[in-house]
């Protein structure tokens, strides 16, 4: 036991005594480990985040299946209003207690009075922010306090609890009676697929970190191997030697764990300010599950050890020195193709079948495609190096080196390639989305629709139109929709639409329209059985029309009536929907979405507003995240590359010194070293662009975005990667070349 401690102590001692190079090696590895630790700890906190959020959602649930039967008592009337503000969900809960002992929802200290509300901190922020007057249109209440964490899904949730005495008039229609909040859990339990995706995500995030870590740990590996040989001569057996090497790598691992925990705490403290997929978490929710936290520590330590042992694979450390069992470079292609082919097979349904495809499988396929790049790069490099066997001495030196040891030349590059491939894929998708920001099902469909009223009189419909048209740039039409029933089965076989010519024009194509006209789609019966046991006759001389937009697909037969052609009997029928359809003209939904919702709330808080075009730049946050992530990853990998170039120069400094001594010019040496760094990168970037384009195409297909590529987003990451390499190489090479080309280097260390 003490022997083991001695070995570990010795190994750790060695980690601290490598001089400047040893230190930078330890530091770099520690940074890599720290990033990995942070990712893992955040991952380990996901279950608790989901559980806490779920518990809060459950506790405020207003779902009550027996709402009709419940008699008034110590009860509260509640109604939920789902709205949005700048494309972020806005939850409203209207409350009115029916007794002083009525149950209070979690998160507020007392029931708000009539016309008062409690708002979430985020909503309070929005109410103080730009466009607040418009937002206030939706919230005709006076804020009297804020909702505490217990009543919110997350810190960034827009929510309010408002008191409304008139809920008593809406019981059974919009409002329900509740004896208890959280009676029936409503949060969807996290299923296995959530965890699966999470696992895949963490793996993906960990990959660049692992690659970087590998590069950092291998930094100075040759010196390490020589040192281990010397220790072996002093009487260490090979197991002890390996233990010492592993112990040496434990220093950065432990430092990284500490640093990573710090980063995790930092991330946790800012977690409350970030909202992803409209989900935000309280810092208190971000608690690693103890088991997973322990696993994280184990994984990190194991990773460092495994990476070290992996680096020692193929190296025999003997007392007399280090023997590289020259891993005979077998440039076999077939096994390198397994991953990409498998990936292509998994994503192929997206292109081949028109039916539903499993998102999980396609995602796995895309990840395999991106990972598949890694083994392909080393295969590509000797090919490139072989293109021109002749050339100047500098190229001769470089291409020899590349062909002999493609693995060493690529270890830092693969990370860049993977990163660039991913960024290319996502970037091209975002670019394609930017081309067509419109996400309506059909271009003929309106931009927004409002449903919820039942008053289908022409006067009421006209009033709705004028009310919405007070918003600049909005054109509103309103139609009422009745269901035509099959006389025998009572099932719906079509619809009767009632509206003025402008309204009908929005939903159908007709050859001219005047009040009093009737149009038919398909062949409706002469007598139209409707709800409320009414039957109306099809007016004389109907003309044919065609439904437009997404209606056309759903409805078999339809009758379109202008107000003057409407039979009186229809007024006794309750319409299925009265829909106000809005067209935006010269304004965007981002500008007017809030106004529309505000006006609708002014008419009736229970009107349901659906905006079919984006009210905000939904992908802005993704783009930022992607750019940030890509920058961090590229920086990390650039750092790894820097280490790698420096390391290889250091290892070959005697050779370079000798070359200089026999008269090789500095330019020859710089060009040769630069070629060795740049050729693998160029080869890898070609691969990255190809893979990125494929994955991008898959993503576009999945989201039904027309496939298009623009050179900008495709090439920007490539240019970035290239610039990074060249920058790093130059940064290391130029100063190093001066030092290295002095024959000083011939001196034995």
């Amino acid at each position, binding site marked *: 036991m003490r022997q083991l401690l001695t070995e570990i102590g010795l190994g750790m001692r060695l980690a601290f005594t490598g001089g400047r190079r040893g230190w930078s090696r330890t530091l770099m590895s520690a940074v890599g480990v720290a990033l990995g630790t942070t990712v893992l700890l955040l991952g380990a906190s996901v279950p608790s985040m989901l559980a806490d959020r779920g518990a809060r959602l459950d506790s405020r649930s207003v779902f009550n299946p027996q709402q009709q039967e419940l008699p008034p008592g110590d009860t509260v009337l509640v109604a939920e209003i789902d709205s949005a503000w700048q494309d972020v969900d806005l939850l409203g809960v209207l409350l009115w207690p029916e007794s002083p002992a009525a149950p209070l929802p979690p998160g507020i200290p007392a029931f708000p009075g009539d016309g008062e509300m409690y708002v979430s901190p985020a909503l309070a922020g929005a109410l103080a922010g730009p466009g607040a007057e418009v937002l206030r249109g939706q919230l005709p209440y006076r804020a009297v306090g804020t909702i505490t964490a217990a009543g919110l899904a997350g810190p960034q949730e827009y929510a309010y609890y408002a008191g409304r005495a008139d809920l008593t008039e809406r019981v059974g229609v919009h409002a329900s009676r509740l004896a208890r909040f959280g009676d029936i859990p409503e949060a969807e339990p996290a299923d296995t697929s959530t965890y699966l995706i999470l696992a895949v995500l963490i793996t993906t995030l960990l990959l660049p970190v692992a690659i970087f870590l590998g590069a950092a740990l291998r930094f100075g590996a040759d010196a390490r191997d020589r040192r281990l040989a010397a220790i072996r001569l002093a009487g260490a057996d090979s197991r002890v030697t390996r233990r010492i090497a592993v112990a040496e790598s434990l220093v950065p691992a432990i430092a990284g764990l500490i640093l990573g925990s710090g980063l995790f705490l930092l991330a946790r403290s800012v977690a409350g300010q970030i909202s992803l997929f409209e989900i935000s978490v309280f810092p208190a929710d971000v608690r690693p599950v103890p088991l997973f936290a322990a696993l994280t520590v184990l994984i990190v330590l194991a990773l460092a050890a495994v990476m070290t042992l992996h680096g020692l694979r193929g190296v025999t450390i003997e007392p*007399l020195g280090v023997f590289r069992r020259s891993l005979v470079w077998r440039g076999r292609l077939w096994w390198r193709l397994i991953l990409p082919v498998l990936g292509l097979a998994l994503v192929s349904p997206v292109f081949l079948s028109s039916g539903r495809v499993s998102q999980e499988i396609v995602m796995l396929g895309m990840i395999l495609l991106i990972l598949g790049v890694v083994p392909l790069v080393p295969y590509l490099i000797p090919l490139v190096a072989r293109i021109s066997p002749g050339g100047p001495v500098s190229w001769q030196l470089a291409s020899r080196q590349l062909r002999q040891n493609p693995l060493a030349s690529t270890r830092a590059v693969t990370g860049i390639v993977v990163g660039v491939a991913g960024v290319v894929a996502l970037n091209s998708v975002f670019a394609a989305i930017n081309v067509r920001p419109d996400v309506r099902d059909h271009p003929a469909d309106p931009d927004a629709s409002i449903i919820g009223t039942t008053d289908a009189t022409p006067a009421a419909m006209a009033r709705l139109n004028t009310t919405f048209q007070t918003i600049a740039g909005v054109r509103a039409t309103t139609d009422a929709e009745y269901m035509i029933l099959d006389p025998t089965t009572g099932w719906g076989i079509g619809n009767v639409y009632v509206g003025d010519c402008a309204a009908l024009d929005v939903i159908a194509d007709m050859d001219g329209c005047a009040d009093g006209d009737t149009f038919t789609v398909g062949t409706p019966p002469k007598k139209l059985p409707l709800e409320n046991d009414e039957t109306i006759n099809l007016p004389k001389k109907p003309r044919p029309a065609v439904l437009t937009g997404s209606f056309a697909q759903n409805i078999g037969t339809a009758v379109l009536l202008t107000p003057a052609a409407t039979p009186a009997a229809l007024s006794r029928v309750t319409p299925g929907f009265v829909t106000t359809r809005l067209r935006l003209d010269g304004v965007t939904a981002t500008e007017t979405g809030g106004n529309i919702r505000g006006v609708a709330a002014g008419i009736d808080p229970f009107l349901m507003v659906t905006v079919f075009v984006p009210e905000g730049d939904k992908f802005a946050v993704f783009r930022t995240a992607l750019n940030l992530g890509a920058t961090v990853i590229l920086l990390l990998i650039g750092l790894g590359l820097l280490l790698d170039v420096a390391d290889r120069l250091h290892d070959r400094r005697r050779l370079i010194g000798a070359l200089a001594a026999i008269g090789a010019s500095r330019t020859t040496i710089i060009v040769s070293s630069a070629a060795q760094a740049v050729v693998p990168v160029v080869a890898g970037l070609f691969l990255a662009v190809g893979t990125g384009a494929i994955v991008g195409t898959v993503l576009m297909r999945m989201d039904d975005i027309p496939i298009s590529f623009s050179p900008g987003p495709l090439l920007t990451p490539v240019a970035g990667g290239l610039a990074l390499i060249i920058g790093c190489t130059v940064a290391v090479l130029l100063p190093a070349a001066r030092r290295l080309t002095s024959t000083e280097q011939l001196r034995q260390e």
Partner: protein
Amino acid sequence: MNALLTAEGLHKAYGPTFALAGADLQLYAGEILSVMGPSGSGKSTLLHCAAGLTTPDQGRVAYLGRVLSELDDVRRSALRRREFGFVFQFGQLVPELTALENVALPLRLDGVRRKPAEQRAAALLERLHLSDKAKARPGELSGGQQQRVAVARALVTEPKVIFADEPTGALDSVSGEQVMDLLTGAARRSGAAVVLVTHDARIAAYADRGIVVRDGRTPARAGIR
């Protein structure tokens, strides 16, 4: 008197080149044996085989009756640690450790606590006139000083055999002499046997007895017929 170390009929080939083609070696306790021969004749290979650092293709090496090639890595390592010491031309010191730590290394690997190990190392450094360099790294020492540190390390476990391969190869004659005086003096005092590979007759003259390696063989002397 029985030999401490016996090597018989050693053959060793590296690919097509023969490094050893039937070499013998006998080492008696406490003696200093020189191994001479032209460059490339197989001297180093013979030493490596005799010390168990290399396994010969043919022939056997026995140390106190134990056949080295039949020992596993752990036992051979233990032998290196406790019974053998090494002084090579260069490269045997760990560049990251100080002179003191380098000398203490075999003891530490053998489970001796840090304090006593370093005390013994310090005593040896003192004997080799290196006390003021105890804290220096090998890179900060001259060639002769590095070799003296190596000698100290070879002696620290009080080994039975010290294997020295061109211990003065990189040194001038004065420093070489100094290293040899210290090495042989200390070895004689502690009763350690020394295998001394060199092509320098003046170094070989420190030995009690010498053998010559030619073309991988250690021929017995032929008569002048």
